[in-house]
């Protein structure tokens, strides 16, 4: 395999991890806000119990993605910097508000509700901003003026495909978080919260799939190259759909306690579903980083830096895996934490 392909695969894996964690994080914040109103319902407790210890780690994965992007692909810096300064800048402001208010809401009980609502709402706006980058990379939204790349904000804001992408991102977030929280509630021995989240997942799942397919039809004419590539990777997208059906079916099977929903299986299938979809999407996106202005080969770093980074990534991950395992054991498995 070529070095630049290895690098983009690493990067894409970080993006995959962040999109999963981010969906859970933002989604849980949203559910926490919805159910936080009737104080201390099980559903809100479950959401916050998940959120408290995990948001920092999730946040770091976002930084990891950005840093890895610029480390492995330094020549993408100038174009990405110009194009995405505004959407990412706004996203950062919101992210800061969200994370700090979320933490503050635990310390300042009197204003807790207000802080919770603000962080819940920003939890929908942030993914919308982040997802709006995707259509830009597919082509049709960038012009060259006096040798500078410019993002056509007007076109982006009025384009149907932008909103289709955003809708897809938000549906994904609701689906993944509802599904995961159903499992989390079920492990926490709170069947009523589990059933509540199960209902949301049952609605959000098919909606997400429909929106995803529709989004493909809304693409700009400039992105037709991408559609051609998608046809070459249909097997990946097909696998993804199949896994979705498995996962979705698991929501209707009875578990040991006689309740409907084999949540753990559903979560695993759906995470795999997104895995297949994201890697198929990623391969369809090759060789371009930003169509037609930048390919991954053009943006790639020098070989000696690549190997140094590769070794650092491997060592870093090797150290972190046990840490993540301990983390998982303490917060996602330990009954003393889950049933408090």
């Amino acid at each position, binding site marked *: 395999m070529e070095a630049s392909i290895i690098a983009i695969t690493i990067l894409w894996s970080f993006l995959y991890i962040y999109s999963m964690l981010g969906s859970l994080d933002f989604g849980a914040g949203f559910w926490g806000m919805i159910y936080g109103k009737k104080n201390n319902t099980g559903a809100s407790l479950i959401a916050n119990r998940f959120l408290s210890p995990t948001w920092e780690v999730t*946040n770091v994965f976002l930084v990891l993605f950005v840093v890895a992007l610029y480390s492995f692909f330094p020549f993408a810096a100038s174009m990405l910097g110009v194009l995405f300064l505004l959407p990412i800048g706004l996203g950062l402001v919101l992210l800061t508000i969200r994370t700090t208010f979320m933490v503050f809401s635990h310390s300042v009980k009197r204003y807790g509700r207000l802080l919770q609502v603000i962080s819940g709402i920003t939890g929908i706006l942030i993914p919308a901003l982040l997802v709006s980058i995707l259509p830009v990379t597919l082509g049709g939204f960038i012009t060259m003026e006096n040798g500078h790349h410019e993002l056509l904000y007007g076109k982006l804001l009025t384009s149907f495909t932008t909103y289709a992408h955003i809708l897809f991102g938000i549906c994904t977030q609701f689906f993944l978080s509802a599904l995961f929280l159903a499992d989390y509630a079920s492990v926490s021995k709170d069947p009523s919260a589990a059933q509540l989240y199960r209902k949301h997942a049952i609605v959000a799942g098919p909606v997400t799939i429909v929106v995803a397919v529709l989004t493909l039809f809304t693409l700009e004419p400039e992105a037709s190259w991408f559609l051609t590539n998608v046809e070459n990777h249909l097997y990946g997208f097909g696998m993804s759909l199949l896994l979705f059906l498995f996962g979705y079916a698991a929501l209707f099977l009875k578990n040991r306690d006689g309740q409907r929903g084999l949540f753990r299986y559903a979560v695993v299938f759906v995470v795999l579903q997104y895995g297949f979809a994201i890697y198929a999407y990623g391969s369809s996106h090759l060789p371009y980083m930003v169509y037609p202005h930048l390919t991954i080969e053009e943006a790639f770093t020098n070989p000696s830096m690549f190997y*140094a980074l590769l070794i650092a990534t491997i060592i870093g991950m090797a150290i972190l895996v046990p840490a993540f395992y301990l*983390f998982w054991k303490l917060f996602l498995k330990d009954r003393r934490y889950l049933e408090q």
Partner: protein
Amino acid sequence: MYARVLFGSSLGFHIIYATLGVGLPLMIILSEFMHIITKDRHYAIMARRITKGFAILIAVSIASGTIVGVLLSLLWPGFMEMVGQIIALPFLIEIFAFLIEAVFMSIYLYAADRLSPAMRLGSIILVAIGAVGSAILITDAHAWMNTPDGFRIVNGEVVDVDPLDAFFNPSFFATALHVTVSAYMTAAFVMASVAAFKLLKRNITKEERSYHMKGLKISLVLGLLMSLATAANGHETAQMLHEYMPRKLAAAEGLFETQSYAPLAIGGFTDEESESVKFAIEIPGALSFLAGDRFDTEVLGLNEFPKDEWPPLFVHTLFNVMVGIGTLLLLYSAFLVIWKFVLKKEFKPWMFAGLTAGGPLAIIAIEAGWCFSCIGRQPWTITDVMRTTEAATDSDYVGLLFFLFAGLYIALLFITSFVMRYYFKRNPVMKDLQLEG
């Protein structure tokens, strides 16, 4: 222009939180450690209360760190292109250190009651290692900007990159050590300030007094040790400047003419017209001695360099503020430690009053130090390789973002102080002391 102001204010904001984020875990470790040794529950309460404050600060620190990290890429595309090719390694490793800190911070915060004391101490030690590790690695990138190494430029292209040479660039060790010990020093003086402020109050109970006194003693001793370390390392840093960044040293000292037996100018303002530092106290030969351990060391003056490569001359004042505050805190804490532990006398109220200023002063010194190091490098972003103007983005939206972020930072400064005040007012130390009494 806005790019510089936006990034500068982002860093200036982040540094306050980041410095405390590096320093406070050490204070928590010391309290936990004292608790294990003395079995005095005051120390356990202390660890818990510092942790609570730390959790609030770290939220802002992580959020602003995310901002700085991402803005760095967006505002300085020209710079990042070069950084990515040469010094990407510490940036990437830094994130892994940061992940370790985040994971064990959550474990320490939310799983404390399920961990054995040894595992609890272990996880806060890992938090401290992660925090100091990420600080050192980010400082490495800063050090490399000051003393770039590990590559050559041929026809405008970067060639012969050696990531390890870039990583271990000449100023790495001195600068990393400087950042680490000064962060510990700052956190110690901030804690000492809080304890001293509480001890100044008349209406506190005997038990509260004894609790705060313990906090004061730990932070005072740590503050003194770290001040000494900072001073020793400051000397090393000056020698490093002399060898690798003579232009910066000359600007720091307002030295125009190259000379041996160069004087050290304390205070005053650098005047370009008369090529001297006005209203300064000059110690003959001291600068030469600092730079090379000998009074006849030749120190390069600003006139050796083209004028358009001079940093702004007010860096002399920044340098003085940093060194001045550092020295003041060193002397004052030494005095108090001798008073208490050698002469075995009781503290007087005015001593507490003086100490309350220590924390804010230390933070001012940290800010001045970072400003000095970055402004003293101007007009270069990467010394002698890339000018700041070449590195900046040409996006039109930087101005808008600047006002957004500036508003956000100011709001957050107020909100964090409000949250801290609110929480610690609601949960005074008396409550913790009685709860387990």
